[in-house]
């Protein structure tokens, strides 16, 4: 079967007109599980193909071209992370953009600080933060789930885990909001936006450098102190540039993603009042509901890679050097893998979704994200009285990859 507009399907996915419901486009893309687009990009949308590529060592996450600009002499600019690529250097990319062996060394050091005790310790705290947000809205008849709860929550959580002093946290909320715009491919073409993002990176990097110095001087029980003082048997102590890159990565990677899981989650449940009622009656359903959300309405729709060698897959060959899109959200709805894939069914068996990616780069923050989503969704289900969507579909933020509502206005009778 061929589709005349095959080669532009991914451009259509990125068009904001299709943001509210990209799934019909994904179904058309899946006709060719790995499809070449007119611009030379290859888009993998079939479950089996995505899975194979995720595990293929010829597929690289270092998909940023080498820095175009020579060193500036400004130590901050020359080594901080910059997803905009202008002056990112090969050595100081955050590990999400790195391949083995460096990727593994850095990731292991981060995992070593993401201890079970720390993550579990955030559970109570997160529940408390959710309750505070709800208290603040008590008495009102409207509720914007994005502004009033989902947006602030992950920033507070990651700041506390990292060990950012509480009085500095408001700055992180502002930075996180600004940097989220840097993650979308479109942002590269907007000069003014790039300039603002560059300034923001400079500001965070400066801040982090000072904070790391402080943590080395007087370490506490937090992730940043751990990262700044621990010595890996193989990699030794993490360098300042890597530390800063890592801290910024943790801040960004866990922000909009978590926001989207909470808001897409509530949107999905409000469209299915029976599922919302079931969660309310039985909070222990939350883990199933959340895994199904990660399949059905995932916060991260795709990630990019590059082919380091010719790769035969799904009846085609991806040529060396070709940019590659792993369209997780399409694989999650592949009827060859999931029976009745367009049905939201928390009781689905064998739900091996791509919500957190897979293989080497599987989400580091998954346990934390699950805790935050569970705290938010169970509290919302339990405490919002007669919640209704004020607009459906809601307005979406521009991002096609980190896809989620810009606001999610609810009418409520009260907060219990």
């Amino acid at each position: 079967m061929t589709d005349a507009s095959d080669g532009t399907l991914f451009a259509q996915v990125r068009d904001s007109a299709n943001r509210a419901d990209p799934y019909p486009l994904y179904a058309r893309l899946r006709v060719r599980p790995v499809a070449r687009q007119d611009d030379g990009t290859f888009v993998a949308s079939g479950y089996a193909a995505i899975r194979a590529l995720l595990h293929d060592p010829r597929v690289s996450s270092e998909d940023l071209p080498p820095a175009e600009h020579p060193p500036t002499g400004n130590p901050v600019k020359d080594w901080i992370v910059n997803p905009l690529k202008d002056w990112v250097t090969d050595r100081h990319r955050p590990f999400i953009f790195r391949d083995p062996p460096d990727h593994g060394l850095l990731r292991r050091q981060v995992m070593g600080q993401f201890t079970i005790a720390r993550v579990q310790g955030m559970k109570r705290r997160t529940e408390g933060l959710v309750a505070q947000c709800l208290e603040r809205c008590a008495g009102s008849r409207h509720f914007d789930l994005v502004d009033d709860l989902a947006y602030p929550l992950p920033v507070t959580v990651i700041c506390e885990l990292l060990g950012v002093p509480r009085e500095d946290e408001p700055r992180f909320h502002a930075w996180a909001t600004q940097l989220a715009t840097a993650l979308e491919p479109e942002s590269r073409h907007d000069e003014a936006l790039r300039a603002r993002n560059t300034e923001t990176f400079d500001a965070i990097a400066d801040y982090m450098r000072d904070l790391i110095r402080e943590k080395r001087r007087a370490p506490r029980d937090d992730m940043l102190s751990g990262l700044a003082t621990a010595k890996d048997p193989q990699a030794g102590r993490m360098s300042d540039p890597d530390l800063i890159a890592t801290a910024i990565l943790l801040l960004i990677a866990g922000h909009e993603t978590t926001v989207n899981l909470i808001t897409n989650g509530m949107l999905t449940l409000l469209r299915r009042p029976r599922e919302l009622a079931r969660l309310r009656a039985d909070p222990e359903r939350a883990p199933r509901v959340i895994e199904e959300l990660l399949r059905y309405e995932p916060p991260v729709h795709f990630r990019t890679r590059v082919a380091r060698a010719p790769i035969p897959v799904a009846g085609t060959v991806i040529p060396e050097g070709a940019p590659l899109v792993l369209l997780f959200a399409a694989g999650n709805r592949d009827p060859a893998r999931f029976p009745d894939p367009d049905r939201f069914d928390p009781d689905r068996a064998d739900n091996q979704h791509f919500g957190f990616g897979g293989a080497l780069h599987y989400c580091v923050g998954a346990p934390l994200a699950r805790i935050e989503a569970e705290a938010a969704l169970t509290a919302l289900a339990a405490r919002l009285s007669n919640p209704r969507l004020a607009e459906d579909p809601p307005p979406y933020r521009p991002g096609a990859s980190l896809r989620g509502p810009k606001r999610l206005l609810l009418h409520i009778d009260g907060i219990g």
Partner: protein
Amino acid sequence: MRVVVDLNRCQAYAQCCYAAPERFVLQGDEILVYDPAPPASDRAAIDRAVQACPVRAIRVEHDALAERAA
């Protein structure tokens, strides 16, 4: 309750260890050790581990009789 992890399938993602730290532990970086017979009172935590495992390697068999007695 009986828990079986298909260790051929398990990729040491450690998601179960965060969900039910008392019952699942990674030794070194890649060997999963777990409690094959956790008490019925751990049902919710074990279910969290089952749901969180990215490769669905954990299977639970409920012993209905013992659970009713408990």
